[in-house]
């Protein structure tokens, strides 16, 4: 392996940082993923979308990280988290697929979505696990 393969990108580009910043700040919920909420391109991204939909979140804002390699690497630096998908709620990083699955099972996800008014509790009771 030549030296240049080992050097990780250390500085997120301005373009990527502002794109990510805006997405995180302007949306109550945003999923940095592979593919789109309608057409996820990886099993982990699909799982996150399905869980959110199961909980009653109909409109999911997604950022397709496959479209821009700067965003794909940028989000990993921005969050200091090495994998995609990444879920942000009200500007805060919630976790990736594993965390979403476990929060779904523990009931924490339903609580969070209700608390942040991302779903109407009356029409969306906690789904079966």
């Amino acid at each position, binding site marked *: 392996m030549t030296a240049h393969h080992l050097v*990780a990108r250390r500085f997120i580009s301005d373009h990527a940082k502002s794109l990510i910043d805006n997405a995180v700040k302007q949306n109550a919920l945003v999923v940095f993923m592979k593919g789109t909420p309608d057409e996820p391109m*990886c*099993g982990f991204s699909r799982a996150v979308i399905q869980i959110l939909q199961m909980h009653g979140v109909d409109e999911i804002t997604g950022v397709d990280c496959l479209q821009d390699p700067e965003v794909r690497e940028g989000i990993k630096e921005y969050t200091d988290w*090495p994998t995609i998908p990444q879920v942000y709620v009200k500007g805060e990083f919630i976790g990736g697929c594993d965390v979403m699955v*476990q929060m779904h099972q523990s009931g924490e996800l339903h609580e969070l979505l209700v608390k942040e008014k991302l779903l109407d509790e009356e029409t969306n009771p906690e789904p079966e696990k």
Partner: protein
Amino acid sequence: MSSQSLRVAGPIEKLIEERISKELVPTSLKIINESHMHRHHAPMQGVESTETHFRVKVVSENSAGKSMIKRHRLIYGLLANEMKAENGIHALALETKTPAEAEKTQTKQ
């Protein structure tokens, strides 16, 4: 489950085991290579390695008092270089429990 004859752990799998064992001194550690499940996905086109996707289930007292994200960050930190490298680890699915949490899940079933 596909039929597989004796499976030998590759270098990356061995590395994962070594580092997690050393840092977390787990009571239980299972590493599953799921690379074959992702081989045909679009993002994996052109990638040669057979050690790209792993699922790790670890039970360790070290996880006590840590939020899930903190537990995961710790493990990701142990493998940071391998996850950044071009031909390295693309995905690491983690399940982190304390011995008490693991027992609770068992008795539920």
